């Protein structure tokens, strides 16, 4: 049982990292806490479901289209809404929260809930690792999480856009003097964050089904991982993802499934109360607490 739990804990950690990485990218660069993140995740899943089942597109096409569309809607959200309240963190929170709420409650109103609302798995087979049956989809999740984290690291360290991202994150005004358009970069960061949410949805949703409530859970999970790891720190996301992933699986196996959410929530509160900048967040400590 122990070895199996470890395997599933690793998979769970990858899921959490996938969920959090987009939120973290947006916050780390533009400082926008995108509370519509969970809603974008669910929206992309429904989009892909609609294209797959109502327009009868092949799965790869509908997935790609929904990722593109979600990315664009993230950019539009920044251009038309967030740009006007830029810099006022609290208005940004209220506005993004309002957007997320509207999207999720709209889907709830439309009543698109049930087991038929799910996306197909990529490869429907499973095999034994360490005494536990693991399906290929879960292995793919782990691989894609690894690829995305690595790709993001390469992107932010070796491309000019990626370097501009980090420049804005470190000091917006200095970056402006170097000719980096902070509005353009912020738009990109919000839309990339949305795109990453869509990618995560495409590969994680096949394990369960699409439900509006999932949107709130995704937001909470992303927040949990980012807060514990330190908002805006990619290394922190990985470490925190692993910590929460293991903690959740082990409470599930040894205590009870009701307690898994409580563990992560309690972890957030603990970290926020003791070290609000998280395990790895060093910059901007004075802006977080006084």
């Amino acid at each position: 049982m122990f070895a199996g739990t470890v395997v599933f804990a690793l998979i769970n950690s990858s899921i959490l990292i996938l969920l959090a990485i987009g939120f973290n990218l947006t916050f780390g660069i533009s400082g926008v806490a995108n509370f519509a993140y969970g809603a974008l995740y669910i929206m992309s899943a429904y989009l892909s479901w609609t294209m797959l089942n109502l327009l009868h597109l092949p799965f790869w096409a509908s997935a790609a289209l929904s990722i593109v569309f979600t990315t664009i809607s993230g950019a539009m959200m920044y251009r038309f809404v967030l740009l006007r309240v830029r810099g006022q963190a609290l208005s940004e929170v209220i506005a993004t929260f309002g957007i997320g709420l509207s999207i999720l409650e709209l889907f709830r109103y439309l009543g698109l809930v049930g087991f038929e609302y799910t996306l197909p798995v990529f490869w429907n087979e499973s095999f034994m690792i360490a005494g536990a049956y693991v399906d290929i989809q879960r292995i793919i999740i782990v691989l894609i999480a690894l690829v995305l984290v690595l790709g993001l690291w390469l992107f932010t360290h070796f491309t000019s856009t990626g370097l501009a991202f980090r420049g804005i994150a470190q000091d917006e005004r200095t970056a402006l003097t170097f000719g980096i358009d902070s509005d353009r970069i912020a738009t990109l960061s919000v839309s990339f964050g949305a795109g990453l949410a869509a990618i995560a949805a495409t590969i994680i949703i096949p394990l369960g089904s699409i439900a509006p409530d999932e949107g709130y859970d995704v937001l909470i999970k992303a927040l949990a991982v980012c807060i514990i790891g330190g908002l805006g720190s990619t290394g922190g996301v990985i470490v925190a993802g692993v910590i929460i992933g293991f903690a959740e699986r082990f409470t599930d196996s040894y205590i009870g499934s009701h307690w898994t959410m409580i563990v992560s929530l309690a972890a957030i509160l603990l970290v926020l109360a003791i070290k609000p900048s998280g395990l790895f967040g060093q910059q901007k400590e004075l802006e977080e607490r006084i």
Partner: protein
Amino acid sequence: MKKRRERIDRGIKARSEDVYALSSWREMLYLAGPRLLPAAAFLLLPLFLGAYWQKVMISVAVFALLAISWDMLAQTGMISLGQALFFGMGAYVSGILNFYFGMPPWIAIPIATVLGGALCTLILTPVLRLRGIYFSMVTLIIPLMLVRIIEATKIFGGTEGLSGMTPLPSTLTEIYLVTGVLLGVLFGLRRLMETDYGLVLKGIRDNDRSVTNAGIDIFWFKTQALFISSTIGAFAGALMTHVYMFVGMPVFALDYSILPMAAAVVGGSGTLAGAALGAVILVPLSEALRGIGGLRIVMYGLFLVVFTVAVPEGLFDYIQRRYHQMERWVEIDQ
């Protein structure tokens, strides 16, 4: 010939703001009118309403209280995404006192108000030092966490909740209790925020570091503001427990967090009266739109976005400006 709009204070405003306010009935009415009108409306309306709209009025007052409590916190620089915490805490404490200890409502409600407020303050004290969105995140998470804990541990009736609370004697008692408290809180807090004490609280919102530099312990002031705010929320919850004769997990639902925030944002945050105005507009509106069901929350969400982005000062500010100032077209000097 180009023109621009000029905005000037009404003469009567300039006169009546001073000691001369007492010089004529007209000026006294100018000052007292906007205050007496809502008070009179709240006190007289219940007598003419039917049973259904009386219940709506209780809802209005309860959400107005929650919105005021949200605004009070926001004025101290703490944006709460979880007013449901205050509401639910008051509701559960009152429910438990009544259910397990058999306390009558007029003992359970006051105790729940103070105890619920104190509990919320105690829960949030460790994170009071957090600023901006960090505080918002915690307040969003805590009510969700409490729901899960109740679900997991099955305490206080678990998912079923507790039912069969003692109701208050009559609907009119409920209405006058809640509107009385609402008016008291509204005018009391508005006055409080005008004093030096309120100035310190607003200072914490605007620039907490300068307030610290002035030798003021902002942590202690934030705790006090939190206690005031959560007590108001807890009262609303405690009262609703006895109105519905039930308390359960729905008291921590998103509705109780979103609607107060939407009300305060629509009415105009930072004025307290705006928060109440927002509740007076939104709650009956949502009753009238009961047919569209879940779309109501979508609507609140859109209200939140539109008002924060396009009309950040809110309706109350606009009305106040129209009341105190007049506009006229003047020629632009070339």
